[in-house]
């Protein structure tokens, strides 16, 4: 039971990270109708930028952990958001009225560019960092000496996810930008006729998605204590699975899906086999798409001829 509780906590934390990435997929898919294949690599770039900012701040002699975390968060969100904007501008915008598969292929190309860009510029080796947030609580002391631990790090990850999700839910449901986004999601031509700047709205979607992915990258860095250039691919597919599971186009769905994938992966590793945890996640993607293509909270897609 203690073991189960510990895995539940670990799974929820991992799921929060997936959920943050999944939001980027789900928003872009909702508005542009394309799978932003490079999104997993944007997450990786976010992790790298957080790492570099962190190193600089430490060498400048800063010691106040909350200040460091806040600065790292803001810097990596800002720069990664610019990455998101640039990627949309270079690789996707010229293809908006191209044939169906063109944006997808362009996104795959962009994903290769980002992966190899960080490999060339930062080297192929894994970058470790010492634990930044230490300490934690023992929730329950088990009979056989197994204690259920909740580390401060895990609390930070979950709280950050909840706060960001609240902010962005508010942004989408209450602000002008959110209204524009929802309008573009329904009908881009009609929205542009009614004075919505479609290009700008789509750019902003990518910016927000990239900013959230960079937070996920930073959380990943803090939680696992390392980043490498190759981590975007698998994390990206899992987050996409989360977005599909939660119902693509739905923000709460993305987080729900992320939590579900995180839990499934953790429990699978804990009770069956670590080697096949990715197989489990990918199988879920296939099973969900076959039996429940609209996901948990998604709307059924009506096919227009």
């Amino acid at each position, binding site marked *: 039971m203690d073991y189960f509780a510990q895995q539940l906590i670990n799974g929820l934390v991992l799921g929060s990270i997936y959920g943050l990435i999944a939001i980027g997929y789900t928003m872009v898919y909702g508005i542009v109708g394309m799978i932003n294949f490079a999104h997993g690599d944007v997450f990786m770039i976010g992790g*790298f930028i957080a790492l570099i900012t962190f*190193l600089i701040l430490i060498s400048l002699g800063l010691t106040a952990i909350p200040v460091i975390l806040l600065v790292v968060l803001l810097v990596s969100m800002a720069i990664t958001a*610019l990455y998101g904007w640039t990627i949309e501008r270079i690789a996707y915008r010229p293809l908006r009225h191209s044939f169906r598969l063109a944006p*997808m292929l362009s996104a795959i*190309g962009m994903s290769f560019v980002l992966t190899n*860009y960080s490999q*060339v510029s930062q080297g192929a080796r894994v970058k470790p960092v010492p634990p930044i947030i230490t300490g934690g609580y023992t929730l329950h002391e088990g009979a056989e000496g197994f204690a259920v631990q909740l580390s401060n790090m895990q609390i930070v990850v979950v709280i950050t996810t909840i706060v960001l999700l609240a902010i962005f839910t508010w942004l989408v449901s209450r602000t002008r930008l959110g209204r524009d986004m929802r309008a573009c999601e329904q009908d881009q031509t009609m929205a542009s006729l009614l004075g919505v700047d479609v290009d700008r709205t789509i750019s902003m979607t990518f910016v927000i998605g990239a900013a959230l992915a960079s937070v996920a990258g930073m959380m990943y860095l803090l939680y696992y204590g390392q980043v490498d250039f190759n981590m975007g*691919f698998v994390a990206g597919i899992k987050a996409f699975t989360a977005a599909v599971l939660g119902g693509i186009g739905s923000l709460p769905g993305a987080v729900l899906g992320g939590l579900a994938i995180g839990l499934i992966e953790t429990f699978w590793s804990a009770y069956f086999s670590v080697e096949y945890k990715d197989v489990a996640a990918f199988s879920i993607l296939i099973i969900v798409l076959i039996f429940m293509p609209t996901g948990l909270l998604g709307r059924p897609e009506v096919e227009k001829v």
Partner: protein
Amino acid sequence: MTALSTETTHVSRTAGVHFILKKAFLSACTALVLFSLMIGIRTEAGPDGPLTYWTRFGELASMVGLVFGGSIIVELIRQWIGPIGAEKLVPTSVKNGMSLLGRYLGPALLVFTLLVPVIFYNQRYILDLAILVLTYVMLGWGLNVVVGLAGLLDLGYVAFYAVGAYSYALLATNFGWSFWVCLPLAGVLAAMWGVMLGFPVLRLRGDYLAIVTLAFGEIIRLVILNWQELTGGPNGVSGIPRPSLFGIPLDNSDDGLAALLHIEYSATHRIVFLFYLILALALLTNWVTIRLRRLPIGRAWEALREDEVACRALGINTTTTKLTAFATGAMFGGFAGAFFATRQGFISPESFTFQESALVLAIVVLGGMGSQLGVALAALTMIGGFELFRSLEGYRMLVFGMAMVLIMIWRPRGIIGHRAPTVFLTKAQAISSDLVKEGHG
């Protein structure tokens, strides 16, 4: 929307130098922020564990300068060519010349390919490279059935390549079966996997289909990697037997081919044999595809690619159409995989990553989906280009990714490609009630 965009380009054309400089400056500023941390600072784990970093402002400045210059050049080219997507008027003489070239390029290329072992007999490197190119031509043609003809985006094609390779490797090393027995078996097994993948994804389309095939490819790779008892896991399978010429081994032994023909043995014999083997397999793929295109099933594939709903409305069974496309494509992938295994003599999961799938897909897409000659030329360009940049390991995939993005922007239908349906009405025919009345219908 269109009127708006032409208006802006008009404005940008007249704006001249000031506009270009401003745009280049903005691009350079963006680049400065983007590259500031990733290129300006280099991190590496120090000798005693913790990360250290050092600055690289020289590289950063040159990258920003490069973006500034590149932006000016791109803008100039854009003004020179005109807006993207505009119909370009090609003179008829050029058009005729191109079509003439197109008609004779294929046969000329084939004759040249047949002569490659004769011309480059003593150049082992070129022969090896030619075999590699032909392997990718074959994979491209196989995937072309799925992507180019049936219009189903398959990102996990390498899975069938892997199934073919491992089928041959395991059957040959465990049971000692010969290549010629295993080759059809590898094809059949891969085709079965194609159907297994095809069944669940029948209802999916477009992007979803692409992601599911990608997941499928990764699952196959992960299973191969982790099922150590059967596949040897990351160590792979080694000691895979070399192919024989219908039972006659191509080696230095007394009953080898060289001894039978009373000629001096040379290692090149085997390479030449492998070359013609893959050429034959590739041509088989091409021939089958061309023949299938003229059969009802091929027509159905093309119809499916153009419009699935219309296809269904016309009474085409989309289930069998999709499944046959997957199975046919997978079968050729399996053949290519078996060839790969016998040529290398050693296979491991590393050869079957997503990058391979993307590479084959890029060949198909850049070649112009559906065009056989285009795919062959694209394979030649890509694999040849990869060889040229062999020394720049890390930059190779970077350039590959950039090329993929640029070509999608510049020629989304592929460089050589045309994907006109093979059947269409040559003459407009009036069908009206008075024709029907007279019984002409």
